[in-house]
């Protein structure tokens, strides 16, 4: 059985991205999850990172402005004529 040098919160914070990307080695991943499961601070931190990502994803829900579309359609019409 692995003798784990338990991760500190400071270390966990640096591993968050690798964890979310599933790039951690199995032992490290296990240590990460073990730590977060019993650490309120890191639980909150990881949640914040996840929420940040989900808020970033929502930025793409912007519509294209109608004036821009009009201009682009004009470009399209001119291209068709060529």
């Amino acid at each position: 059985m692995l003798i784990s040098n338990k991760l500190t919160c400071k270390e966990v914070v640096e591993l968050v991205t690798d964890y979310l990307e599933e790039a951690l080695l199995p032992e490290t991943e296990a240590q990460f999850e073990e730590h977060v499961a019993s650490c309120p601070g890191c639980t909150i931190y990881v949640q914040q990172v996840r929420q940040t990502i989900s808020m970033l994803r929502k930025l793409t829900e912007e519509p294209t402005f109608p004036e821009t579309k009009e201009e682009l359609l004009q470009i399209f019409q001119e291209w068709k004529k060529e």
Partner: protein
Amino acid sequence: MSESTHSPASPSDVRIVQEETSGKNSPSTGTLSTEDVHLIEMLRRGDEAAFVSLIDHYHASMLRLAQVYVPAQSVAEEVVQEAWMGVLQGLKRFEGRSSLKTWIFRILTNCAKTRALREGRSIPFSSLPDFDTKSNMSVVDPDRFLPPDDPVAPGGWAALPSSWENIPEDRLLSEETRMRIETAVMALPPHQCAVITLRDIEGWSAEETCHFLGISEVNQRVLLHRARAKVRQALEKYFEEE
């Protein structure tokens, strides 16, 4: 465009290699989905609805990516417009060796880079790939953790971060929050900005992003890590303001 009198464009007009098991794009292996093949066909015939669907799908993303290279919105808009012209003009020759998306975004970044050069800006990812991935910079202020010799919790949080769970939904999704996030992203160093834009805003996969930017997975992860940490921190600061 004289193709309006043709019978439907035959598959040999575009050398198509389609995935047999699914219609999904595989940008890194360069196969076209059935949807893309159809779309290209319609575009070549001058079908306006096809072009509108293309705009709806890609325009906002192209604008965002252009701003990584040329931050001023009005300049970015010009760049994207140029890119659309490039797309239309290149349609005839497009062979489908890469996905439609990759092709469009390459045209976009080429236009953006050209414009950036003209404006005397530096271009992200144009120089040595090994940009600053070696520094052991921590992404959270080290002062927020107890020292390694702390008797109780070495390296532990000195004070708990505040949970965002109790922030009402409408504040999380508000226009102001949105603007804060966008500001934070645009304030990132260009490499980090590019990676977080493609990965977290546009939802590209790690593979697509690495392939497109020409960087390794490790580099990409380091950049993403730093970028996300900065945006998280900006949000934390914002939510603490009230």
